């Protein structure tokens, strides 16, 4: 009964979303504000409706309604309540509903903004948001219904259906299968919501871009309205990616955070175009240039958001045949195709209205550097896109399955990332419109000398790897330039105002939040690059089977096997937990407890490494295998991951920088009203 209610509400919300599309289009062409207003209310209504449906599902999960196929597959009696709630996004059907829920939240929030100045955009923002929403709700209602339940037919088969088939009786399993143990990790609990928030919030700038194209109001107004949305979207997407990396590092047990897996790349691709967009829109704001390009970037980002969900949800990655059998695969494929062609068509239709207002004057100008930045981001996108779809092409045309793995991506993207780090350093030094070597050099020479000194120190410490030396030089250069930029501005402000250094830092950042938030993000990226470089180039590993009291050695560390215990836990796990002692130069540093949990319900093992983290490195120990008799031995795999914690520390700084950049200003409408009245006063004064 409760399940039918949840499903019914969802069907109503689908009807509401479809009505919103129809009413908005009708209201625009008639034209009738009443119809547009009606569609706006429909859009606003979608959030409470989908919330009701999602909460119903959560209620069913928490209360062990295993008669539902979805509840059965993601939860079990032994799971704690907080994990049950997060099981909402632990399976296909639930995560699509969750996607729709977040989408409706963002769409409703946009509906609540003040539309006075941008009335003409409203219907088309509603159309885009509602079409996207209707598509996802449609998938849930028609193909991936989390409310479908089990029925037993007269011949004993158990089938899944929403409504009672003829001759079937309800069937309820005693317990569920439980959530995949790999997903029972804080990183995995927050990672999907962050990623989805990033995904759905990129729909908003896209909706405004389409609205601008349809209505022909092709100035930079849509960019100004959505600037903060875009930054928020970008922040969530970045956080989602980082959390996913942390999750992989903690639970997948291969000593790394990123494996160039197609699922990872699926989430990375919209980030690439999104990051290019975040930079590139500034050119349009400041110089009125590259309007075609920015529109194309946001269209691509939207398509890649849907494509990313498609890749991970349609089964196309495992095989083109799995895709053909999957119900939602073809639906996604058609939706992506139709929305992309329609958007691109609109862009071409408005091509002549999107002419640049100024031209590129100098190769050293800020806009020129941004273009180069875009070239690098797009090139990384091409590598990723091609690497992900090539196995499908190969399977389709030759029947041969191939793997495009890390060596391909590492080789192809490393120089592009290096180029991006270099640009991150020098681009902020250049001016809009025009820069000269002289002005650049003046800002550059001191940090460059510092970077050379740092490089010499690193060489003196014994680093000889040419790739690492190149990487570290770029990192030093960018880091010092950015810090020096900060310092120059703070000092200048301090001198001008007489404020002390802390106050002038606070006010400086407060007055130019986007700029200095951006700089903080740049510094965080450089820190992450240090961690990535350390792990990629200097990770070492060893594996060995040792008896109790014996040791393994790696990079100066001695790992001694002390003890092992095997026991069952109340939440239906069998745990094998080893005790190992870590020492260096004869000094005991710590004890670590690598373990392997076996989950009875899902019959799946999970490897939890023992990790010793310092600013210098991680010692990461995995228990691979063991004999019941300790003297016979246990097998350990040990990774030494130099500098990897810079990656995580950089992520924390990133969050801070992103918050600085997106922190809300005073009410923009109020501010602009003030500006308007001030401008009007000035204009009357001038007359």
């Amino acid at each position, binding site marked *: 009964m409760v399940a039918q209610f949840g499903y019914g509400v969802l069907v109503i919300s689908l009807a509401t979303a479809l009505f919103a599309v129809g009413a908005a289009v009708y209201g625009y062409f008639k034209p009738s504000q009443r119809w547009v207003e009606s569609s706006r209310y429909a859009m606003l209504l979608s959030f409470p409706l989908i919330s009701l449906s999602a909460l119903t599902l959560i209620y069913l999960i928490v209360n062990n309604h295993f008669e539902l196929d979805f509840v059965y597959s993601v939860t079990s009696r032994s799971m704690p309540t907080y994990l049950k709630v997060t099981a909402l996004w632990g399976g296909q059907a639930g995560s699509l509903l969750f996607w729709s829920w977040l989408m409706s939240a963002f769409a409703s929030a946009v509906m609540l903004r003040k539309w006075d100045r941008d009335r003409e955009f409203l219907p088309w923002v509603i159309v885009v948001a509602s079409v996207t929403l209707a598509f996802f709700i449609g998938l849930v209602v028609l193909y991936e219904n989390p409310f479908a339940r089990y029925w037993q037919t007269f011949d004993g088969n158990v089938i899944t259906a929403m409504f009672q088939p003829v001759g079937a009786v309800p069937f309820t399993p005693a317990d569920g299968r439980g959530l995949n143990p790999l997903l029972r990790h804080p990183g995995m609990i927050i990672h999907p919501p962050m990623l989805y928030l990033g995904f759905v919030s990129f729909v908003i700038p896209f909706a405004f871009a389409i609205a601008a194209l349809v209505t022909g109001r092709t100035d930079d107004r849509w960019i100004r309205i959505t600037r903060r949305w875009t930054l928020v979207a970008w922040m969530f997407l970045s956080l989602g990616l980082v959390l996913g990396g942390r999750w992989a590092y903690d639970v997948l047990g291969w000593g790394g955070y990123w494996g160039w897996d197609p699922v990872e790349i699926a989430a990375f691709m919209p980030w690439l175009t999104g990051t290019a967009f975040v930079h590139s829109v500034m050119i349009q704001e400041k110089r009125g240039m590259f309007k075609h390009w920015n529109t194309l970037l946001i269209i691509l980002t939207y398509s890649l958001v849907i494509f990313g969900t498609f890749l991970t949800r349609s089964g196309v990655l495992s095989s083109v045949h799995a895709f053909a059998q999957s119900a939602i695969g073809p639906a996604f494929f058609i939706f992506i195709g139709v929305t992309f062609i329609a958007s691109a068509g609109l862009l071409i239709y408005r091509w002549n209205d999107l002419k640049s207002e100024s031209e590129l004057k100098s190769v050293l100008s800020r806009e020129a550097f941004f273009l180069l930045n875009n070239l690098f981001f797009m090139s990384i996108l091409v590598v990723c896109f091609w690497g992900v779809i090539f196995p499908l092409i190969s399977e389709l045309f*030759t029947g041969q399955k191939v793997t495009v793995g890390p060596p391909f991506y590492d080789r192809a993207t490393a120089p592009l990332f290096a180029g991006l780090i270099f640009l991150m350093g020098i681009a902020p030094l250049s001016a809009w419109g025009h820069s000269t070597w002289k002005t650049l050099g003046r800002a550059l020479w001191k940090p460059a000398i510092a970077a050379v000194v740092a490089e010499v120190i690193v060489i003196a410490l014994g680093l000889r790897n040419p790739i690492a030396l190149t990487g570290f030089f770029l990192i030093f250069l960018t880091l010092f330039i950015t810090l020096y930029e900060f310092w120059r501005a703070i000092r200048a402000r301090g001198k001008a105002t007489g404020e002390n250094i802390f106050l002038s830092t606070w006010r400086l950042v407060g007055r130019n939040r986007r700029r200095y938030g951006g700089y903080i993000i740049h510094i965080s990226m450089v820190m992450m690059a240090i961690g990535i470089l350390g792990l990629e180039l200097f990770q070492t590993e060893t594996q060995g089977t040792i008896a109790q009291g014996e040791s393994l050695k790696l990079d100066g560390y001695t790992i001694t096997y002390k003890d092992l215990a095997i026991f069952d836990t109340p939440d239906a796990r069998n745990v094998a937990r080893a005790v190992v002692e870590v020492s260096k130069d004869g000094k005991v540093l710590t004890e670590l407890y690598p373990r392997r949990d076996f989950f009875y319900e899902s019959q799946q093992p999970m490897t939890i490494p023992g990790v010793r983290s310092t600013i210098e490195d991680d010692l990461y120990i995995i228990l691979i295998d063991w004999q019941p008799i300790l003297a016979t031995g246990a097998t350990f795999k040990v990774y030494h991951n130099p500098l990897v914690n810079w990656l995580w520390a950089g992520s924390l700084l990133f969050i801070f920088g992103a918050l600085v950049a997106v922190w809300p200003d005073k009410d923009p409408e109020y501010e602009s009203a003030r500006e308007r009245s001030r401008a009007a006063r000035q204009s009357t004064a001038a007359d």
Partner: protein
Amino acid sequence: MKKLIWFTPIMLVFAALWVGTAFAQDPTPSDDDVNRIAKQLFCPVCENTPLDVCPTQACAQWRALIREKLAAGWTEEQIKQYFVDQYGARVLSEPPRTGLNWLVYLVPPVLFVVGVIILVRTFRSPKESKGGDGTDSISTPTDGTPVQPAAGSDDYVARLEEELKKRN
């Protein structure tokens, strides 16, 4: 499914061999020797998992197979080739450089060069792309008139837009 049934007896043999070798002393190849090769191979049954870190039983047996081959004096190349012959090119971490597979290596650099050409053209004199030939997706510089939005229309609106721009 058929394939898996076929595997079972082989796996049992490997498992027996593995128990026999893993805990024995020299001269069997070390775990590190095995992982060095397993790292370069992908699990033939799981999606996108390198063989050295794949936790499944099947992969443990494949690693045991590598150990066997090493002990028998096979070279790294021979072992990799053996896996390709048995399970197809998908066990390699990159497509072999043959036939259609060349596309995977050629398309990204070619598109990069196209991007560079577009960029260089954008940087060049605006006269070249003045007509807006449609291929230049990055920019279409126009006749170079200075930025004066809505200059001819309402003076107040123009000034307002300028003000708003300056605020940023």
